[in-house]
């Protein structure tokens, strides 16, 4: 009975799961195949309205928007995923060490953390991008650095909460090595909190990438991300409303899907 209760799907889980699955499938298919080339231009088909041939219409270069959305989705999801993985990994490492041990290392790391946090993220991104050049991998690197402090904070406070717990003390008494306590005993206990912050981080990374695209420091053409497409599209709101709509709705569905999934998981485990 209890197990069944745990597995019970709530509406959030179902809706979020479906939305996310559709997005993932589109993105995966898009990396291998798209209905049309994402770069071939056609003057004749410039700003064609949605039709059976081009279900989302075409853009200012006559390129099929649906194909570009599929490709852009892949880019966007990759940026989001790699940013949370990179920033999350650093966050766990630094957060665990500083939270568990405290002392001067904590002091030093937290000051550095504050400094990164206080440093305008746009300037930070710009430094990374000016030095290493624009492009996908540097956008990921820049956003990862920006996202590290929040992960460090979350992990650190979890370790502070858990470090004096009974199970940690007994492991200590049993002579388990510190590294083992940190990453084998404590880590699994923070995973539920951490996975939800990963999801929030994923969405924030996607939104931050859109902002960078708007400011002109996102991915480079002819590569497309959803944020870049949306910011390109806003100049044609009257001429080609389908352009902004396609890119905008895809971002919203992607972000919403992940949020609902997170909410579903949270409600599931709370019930």
């Amino acid at each position: 009975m209890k197990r069944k209760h745990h597995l019970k799907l709530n509406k959030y889980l179902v809706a979020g799961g479906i939305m996310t699955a559709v997005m993932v499938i589109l993105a995966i298919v898009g990396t291998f195949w798209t209905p049309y080339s994402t770069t071939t231009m056609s003057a004749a088909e410039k700003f064609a309205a949605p039709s059976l041939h081009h279900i989302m219409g075409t853009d200012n270069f006559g390129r099929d928007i649906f194909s570009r959305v599929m490709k852009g989705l892949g880019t966007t999801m990759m940026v989001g995923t790699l940013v949370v993985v990179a920033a999350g990994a650093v966050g766990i490492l630094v957060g665990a060490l500083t939270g568990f041990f405290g002392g001067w290392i904590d002091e030093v790391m937290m000051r550095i953390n504050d400094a990164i946090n206080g440093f305008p993220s746009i300037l930070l991104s710009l430094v990374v991008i000016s030095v290493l050049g624009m492009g996908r991998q540097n956008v990921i690197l820049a956003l990862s650095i920006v996202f590290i402090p929040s992960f460090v904070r979350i992990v650190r406070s979890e370790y502070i909460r858990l470090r004096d717990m009974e199970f940690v003390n007994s492991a200590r008494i049993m002579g388990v090595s510190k590294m083992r306590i940190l990453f084998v005993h404590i880590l699994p206990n923070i995973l539920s909190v951490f996975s939800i912050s990963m999801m929030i981080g994923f969405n924030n990374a996607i939104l931050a990438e859109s902002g960078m695209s708007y400011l002109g420091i996102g991915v480079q053409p002819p590569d497309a991300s959803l944020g870049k497409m949306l910011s390109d599209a806003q100049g044609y709101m009257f001429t080609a409303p389908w352009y902004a709509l396609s890119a905008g709705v895809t971002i919203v569905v992607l972000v919403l899907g992940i949020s609902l999934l997170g909410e579903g998981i949270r409600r599931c485990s709370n019930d």
Partner: protein
Amino acid sequence: MKYFGKKLVSLIITLFMVSVATFIAFQIIPGDVVTSILGTEATEEREAQLREELGLDKPVVERYVNWMGGVLKGDLGTSYRYSKSMNEMMPVAELIGDKLPVTLWLAAIALVLIIVISIPLGVLWAHSSSKFLDAFLGVMTQGAMAVPSFFLGVLVIYIFGIVMKMFTPGSYISYHTSFAGFLGYLIFPAIAIAIPKIAMTARFLRNAMLGELKQDYVRTAYSKGCSKNRVMYGHVLKNAMMPVITFVGMIIAEVVAGSIVVEQVFSLPGIGRLLISSISTRDFPVVEILVLYIAFVVIFVYFIVDMLYRVLDPRISGR
């Protein structure tokens, strides 16, 4: 007192680190202010002359020390880029002093909107047993958080400005000219800033309240015969506000530090836009002061939140 002293020292250390980092960043990034000012018409003579005028011919460390010395004496320097008259550059203090009220008022209006709307909304949400309302608010708030901020700004302009004609996009009125007109224009960018934050805060408050409702003391209060309202507002809300204060604190830090994207979309001459344009033209004196200001705001707000915690929850100061 010892606590304050410690906090103060760490604030100073962090600000110092931030200023050095900014200085180093400016040494690393390509492009310098002289080529940026002279553009494609640069001649070697003019470059050398300008470099000397701006003091850029001096060694790197000397420049930083000079700059720091000036700041400590209260002289924030002059912009490399913005003129005050034919032969004087704009003092940084004057430049930022002119832009800061825009950002601060924008932040203030956005904050009022956030607090006035999100707190009743969060309480109502936690209070309500309607499945429909729960799902509706759940989807609405998630949706509001899923729109990129620049696009939300564009949507606000289209809906309120171009379709409903409630304001004229781009007709920003300086607070020197008309304070009422100034606030009237700021409401719309403030809405663009506030929407996702309202959604976040309301969700956060609701979840905190639901968490509190499961606590033992709530059951005790009920069993003692307290009314539902009394329990909700007397106990639950008060306790649930604790984490919400931290959360709102983070939002304050964010909006007071300048909403770069929204200022850009609405053509507001605030410090976020000044930061972006100063970075792009390599106007070092302006960027340094802005970065210090932003770092200060972020750290200071976190500090205040920390203090509030101590005041509201005596358990913490014991730690």
